[in-house]
């Protein structure tokens, strides 16, 4: 089974002080599939993705990428694994001191030592793939709208043609039309590259467009996972409450009365 898995997480634990965020979490991401993890705010989605990428260190557990344990790797080995990754951050995380094309080409120039001219050509092609003209490449991130910034961030995530792409709340802060544009672009880019994708979101519409498989995180654990099409009939009361957006159910939100 491990041979078919691109990412395998077992018994992952992470806490901040006394607050336990990930509690013995298990997760499998099959090769070539798009898995979307849903969950409420503060449920540990972002921490999960940051632990897998290596931006945070879990206290316990195991994370395998292509069957290779990545926790405890040396910095050089970790950098090698990192070359398989692309990531779209929630806020875009574009470098505001660099023009758009250099943002997209950054991983090629700084990370892989590509020549600037060649990297620029690739960057402009990738910008075209997300529907942005070459003129946009000369602008700075601050001159772009939120939707355009997300598209540039997507172009940057796919520029080095990674094997695994992570999407952190890809549609947060966008209007419904732009959200749909981004969702369709994500679907197209992941399919074109044949990449494995792991996304975290609380946008159900996004899940329906981009997911092959879905999982729900609650209280630091994966409480359900299955095919994306099954999510409306999961039989799990937590998933049903989340999918239907009900305030009543097993998930309690601490709300103080005025």
């Amino acid at each position, binding site marked *: 089974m491990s041979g078919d898995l691109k990412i395998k997480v077992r018994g992952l634990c992470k806490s901040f002080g006394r607050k336990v965020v990930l509690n013995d979490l298990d997760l499998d991401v099959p090769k070539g599939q798009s898995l979307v993890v849903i969950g409420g705010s503060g449920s540990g989605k972002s921490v999960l993705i940051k632990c897998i990428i290596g931006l945070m260190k879990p206290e316990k557990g195991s994370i395998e990428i292509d069957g290779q344990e990545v926790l405890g790797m040396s910095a050089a080995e970790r950098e090698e694994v990192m070359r398989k*990754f692309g*990531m779209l951050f929630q806020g875009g*995380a574009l*470098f505001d001191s660099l023009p758009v094309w250099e943002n997209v080409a950054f*991983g090629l120039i*700084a990370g892989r030592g590509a020549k600037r001219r060649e990297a620029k050509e690739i960057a402009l092609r990738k910008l075209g793939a997300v529907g942005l003209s070459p003129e946009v490449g000369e602008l700075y991130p601050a001159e772009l709208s939120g939707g355009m910034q997300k598209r540039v961030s997507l172009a940057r995530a796919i520029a*080095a043609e990674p094997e695994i792409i*992570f999407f952190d709340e890809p549609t947060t802060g966008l209007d419904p039309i732009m959200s749909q544009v981004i969702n369709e672009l994500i679907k197209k880019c992941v399919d074109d590259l044949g990449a494995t994708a792991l996304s975290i979101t609380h946008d159900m519409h996004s899940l329906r467009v981009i997911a092959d498989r879905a999982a729900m995180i609650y209280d630091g654990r994966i409480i359900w996972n299955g095919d994306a099409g099954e999510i409306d009939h999961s039989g799990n009361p937590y998933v049903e409450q989340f999918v239907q957006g009900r305030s009543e159910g097993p998930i309690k939100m601490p709300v103080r009365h005025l």
Partner: protein
Amino acid sequence: MPLLQPLGRTFLGGLEAIGRVALFTLRAVLMAVQPPYYPRLILKQMIEIGYYSLPVVGMTAIFTGMVLALQTYTGFSRFNAETAIPNVVVISITRELGPVLAGLMVAGRIGAAMAAELGTMRVTEQIDALTTLSTNPFKYLIAPRLIAGLTMLPVLVAVADVIGIFGGYLVSIYKLGFNPGTYLANTVEFVEFLDIFSGLVKAGVFGFIISLMGCYHGFSSRGGAQGVGKATTNAVVTASILILISNYIVTELFFSR
């Protein structure tokens, strides 16, 4: 007991902070000497620190030199020792005032800018993005700033020394009525290599401290705009205090008998 608890907590917190800074410094220095290097970024930081700080450092130096000549004259004229003014000006500027005042001015200008820039990059996940793009943030962000600080402060201080001495010269010649030739001859004759060299060594140490504190506080900032503001303040305050402390240590090393 209630009195001892906060005292102990503060003491342990202080030790923890020193440990964190020491580890950060060690990691930064190790990364700075390992490839890949980013010459384009080093040059950019050198221009930012060296060239753009020139006006503020120059202004500080010229007025310091002028005031120094004026004040020394007021004091020394009581003992008929006015001829010692060029000596006092050149020694004070090269050994102490040039490096310390330039260091403090650059700490305010560059230390704050570094902390604000890196702090904003931290809270907007740009530093995380660097890591995901196979780029080590220590090599890409910290190393160029440390190298630029270490190399450009001595250059700035060398310029500040010349401007400061010139400030003293202007006041001495045009206000106090010194003979220009005698003033310059006294200055050149009296100054020693060690006076200038010790000042430039101090400048290198101060440049390293300014960049290190700017990078450390910016890199470690948390919690949005408030965190960035706090990081900026801390960068300037700690750099200024460390400049004054290290100034004493370097002076001891050079001139203690």
